[in-house]
């Protein structure tokens, strides 16, 4: 993304893929979501999930990481072409977060984002608000999570 004026509704951003390792799943869970099915293989087998799986918050945090990296690449490319670029954020909120299927150790999740709407911010005239629909799908092409967020994007200086 770049300045608000350059944001194109309908554009789809391919953010990239991420391998969820058992170690990373346990490490996130130990700090933030120490439920047995996120920490321990044996306990997870006895749970409704059937195997060690990532905290839902971990699956969103990885989306965030890939989104930030995508933005950095985009800004570098724009600067290389001599075009203006701006950083987005922060976000006032998320909604309709859905964890549709467990993300198991060894799963590779591919994240994508569609720009669904944009409007000028009423409270902050220097910014626009852009709405994004985000999702992740596993290596079997099954959607595992999705959510909608809004993000502040600076308007071109006038």
């Amino acid at each position, binding site marked *: 993304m770049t300045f608000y004026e350059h944001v194109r509704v309908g554009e789809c951003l391919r953010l990239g893929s991420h391998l969820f390792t058992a170690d990373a799943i346990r490490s996130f869970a130990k700090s933030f*979501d120490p439920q047995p099915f996120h920490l321990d293989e044996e306990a997870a087998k006895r749970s409704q999930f059937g195997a060690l799986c990532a905290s839902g918050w971990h699956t969103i945090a990885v989306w965030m990481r890939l989104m930030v990296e995508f933005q950095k690449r985009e800004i570098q490319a724009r600067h290389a072409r001599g075009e203006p670029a701006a950083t987005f954020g922060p976000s006032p909120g998320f909604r309709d977060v859905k964890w549709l299927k467990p993300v198991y150790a060894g799963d590779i999740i591919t994240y994508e984002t569609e720009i669904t709407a944009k409007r000028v911010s009423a409270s902050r005239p220097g910014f626009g608000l852009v709405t994004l629909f985000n999702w992740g799908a596993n290596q079997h092409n099954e959607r595992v999570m999705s*959510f909608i967020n809004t993000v502040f994007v600076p308007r071109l200086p006038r």
Partner: protein
Amino acid sequence: MPKIYFEDFAPGQVRKFGPRRITREEMLAFAADFDPQPMHLDEEGGRASMLGGLAASGLFTCSIAMRMVADGILLRSSSMGANAVEEIRWLAPVRAGDALTLRLTVLDTRRSRSRPDLGFVRMLWEMFDQDGGVVMTLTAPMMFGTRSGPNS
């Protein structure tokens, strides 16, 4: 043996957790791993942003809230996880050194029609800073086993 089941929740119930002091180190570590935007990494990046100074990633605040709910309820309950969050709102920046408290209010409860061994407890999570200001709210239905369910 879990101590808290679906039947133990009723609309209007309030539970409070914390305070939990946020260190600069853990804020920066989360940002480095998951949200390396300038406003979450150092003072200068924070001052140049809408947040007016170094501030925690909103997802870090969610993760801390999750930990407080896990420690406060889930780990001694028949929790069966959650598959949705209706809404998250970040209302004010969280700074290093803030002491956060979480208030959970039960909005409504509903036994699953298709699976009598589980029920949904819809809760409002409100995170406050040490001055009583709301920094984040979140609404989510969480799943708990019933007393007659297989986890009882």
